[in-house]
């Protein structure tokens, strides 16, 4: 028995012990990927750092994000009090950025999770069953695809009003069709593999085959899609906030900060540039982390 086998023996029982529904050996691979791959490490660090600063913003932020200080209007000086300067009302930009991360990240992740859940379900069933169900679901998806996402989002926000959940669903709605189409395509190719037939012949039901045999084999491109779209959803939320259709005009979000700073870009560039940089770094981090996830879950990748 090789060392690798013994390690696996320890990690995986016959059932494959699970942590949060993920097989422990996959989790192990993820840890290994992050430890060994520099890009994965950077991505993971960014995601964790931004995630933590968003979650603990009330404790970490040096100032109340809404507190105005008229003595400090548009101050760029990186003082210990305002490391990233202040905006046109003298509000601390760092604090606003940290509070903004809460909304931006939550809306971004929430929107894509919503879009992915619905879209992947549609894609799995359409691709697996084919026939009229496929036609019905995919034509419905085509209709969604025919509208620009911004238009849909504006309509939804206009109908249901502003607010965290509404913005999240409005943004996520636009991603259903992309996830559905990608999942369906993957299912179509996996459906041709004999292991789905084999699963049928040992007596698994259709739903079991879809979720145990088909879905895990479609997941790699979906993870990549998920991370790319999370980045895009953060931008989408920023766009809506920029247009004044975001969560609430007064709530600090990255998009809103960017939008508010736009008017002063010639006098105080940092008000809009810094949230822009934050968005960019987050998007980069999520993408790198997504690549690591994909590598870790692809058991066919050679052992490192």
């Amino acid at each position: 028995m090789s060392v690798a086998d013994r390690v696996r023996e320890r990690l995986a029982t016959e059932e494959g012990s699970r942590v949060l529904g993920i097989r422990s050996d996959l989790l192990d691979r993820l840890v290994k990927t992050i430890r060994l791959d520099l890009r994965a490490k950077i991505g993971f660090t960014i995601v964790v750092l931004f995630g933590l600063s968003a979650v603990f913003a009330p404790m970490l932020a040096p100032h109340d994000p809404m507190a105005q200080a008229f003595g400090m209007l548009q101050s760029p000086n990186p003082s210990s009090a305002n490391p990233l300067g202040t905006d046109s009302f003298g509000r601390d930009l760092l604090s606003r950025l940290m509070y903004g991360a809460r909304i931006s990240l939550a809306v971004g992740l929430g929107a894509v999770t919503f879009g992915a859940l619905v879209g992947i379900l549609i894609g799995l069933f359409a691709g697996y069953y084919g026939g009229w169900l496929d036609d019905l679901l995919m034509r419905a998806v085509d209709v969604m695809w025919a509208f620009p996402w911004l238009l849909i989002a504006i309509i939804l926000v206009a109908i249901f009003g502003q607010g965290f959940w509404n913005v999240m669903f409005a943004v996520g709605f636009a991603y259903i069709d992309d996830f559905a189409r990608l999942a369906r395509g993957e299912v179509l190719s996996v459906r041709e593999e004999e292991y789905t037939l084999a699963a049928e012949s040992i007596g698994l039901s259709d739903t079991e085959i879809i979720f145990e045999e088909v879905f895990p084999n479609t997941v790699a491109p979906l993870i990549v899609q998920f991370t790319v779209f999370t980045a895009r959803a953060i931008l989408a939320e920023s766009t809506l906030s920029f247009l004044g259709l975001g969560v609430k005009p007064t709530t600090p979000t990255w998009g809103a900060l960017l939008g508010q700073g736009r008017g002063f870009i010639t006098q105080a560039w940092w008000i809009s540039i810094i949230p822009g940089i934050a968005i960019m770094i987050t998007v980069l981090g999520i993408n790198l982390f997504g690549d690591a996830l994909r590598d870790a879950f692809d058991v066919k990748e050679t052992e490192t």
Partner: protein
Amino acid sequence: MTDGSDPLLVAEDVKKHFTVEQGMLDRLFSDSEVVHAVDGVSLEVATEETLGVVGESGCGKSTLGRTLARLHDPTEGVIRFDGEDISSLSGARLKELRKDVQMIFQDPLSSLNPRKAVGEIVGKPLEVHDIATGEEKTARVRELFEEVGLNPDTRHRYPHEFSGGQRQRIGIARALAVEPKLIIADEPVSALDVSVQAQIINLMKRLQAEYQLSYVFIAHDLSVVKHVSDRVAVMYLGEVVETGPTDDIFERPEHPYTRSLLHAIPSVEGETGRREILLEGNPPSPIDPPTGCRFHTRCPEYIDGECAKVDPELTAVDGADTSAPAHRVACHWLEHDSSERAAQSPFDRDERGDGAVDTGLTDD
């Protein structure tokens, strides 16, 4: 091996037609095209018997196998297993059948889920049918691994870490897990090296004796089929054209198609005196199969006026053993004198059938 009792599996006039996948508009506004993949096959398999099914690629042998295993619903016909009509089972009763009928697939890599450890794959049937769980399942999986000649400690590895032969052993272990009565092996060795083929075939033979298994062994390699089968069914374009005990088929083939297949086996001895039979052309499309005998477009012994018109029935060969599964052939030459057959020289292929030569043959 047949002891005269009721056969384990009986297929009567089984048909499986597929509708060609079309876009939504085609489906709404035009007639769909139908592939006659399996078109009226009758066969039986006795307990502990191996029935070899041979034919060119595309003749419907895989579809037949999958239909017999009820992975496809038969379009028409009756399949009986152990006396019970299984042709339209569904739900829980179909699941029950899965315990008795299992499949081994052609591509050992494609038939194993790449994201599951092989122990998980082999243990899955035990779980699905509530045969064993937990410790018991682990023990049984180890047993199965040993039974098929694999190291039980490798069960946490993934399929891509094994060689082709080992993967096929995993596939066999999975099929064996529920201790089935019948295993349908769809070209189980075609994807393997010759040396590995022999190992897998010997394994299958050993398991057959040990577990009293019946096999439907689908293959295009006649030498393999000759080695493993008790009886053989030769398929052409969705139909069985000749069936009988292996020796009869290989020693006294009656159907021109069987003969040409046998002649295609490369011979080491370099036998002389055999008449070369080379088939020309490709099998016709199963979407629009030829009228009459399906083989008439390529037959080297074509009879003008009969073959293109009348579909020959499977008939017992004169002198064949009259006890049940006899040597039967679907060919018009059975109604003719053998001397006549030897003297015959057929029309060119272009002049055949519904076309120029014979009048009154075109009925549609």
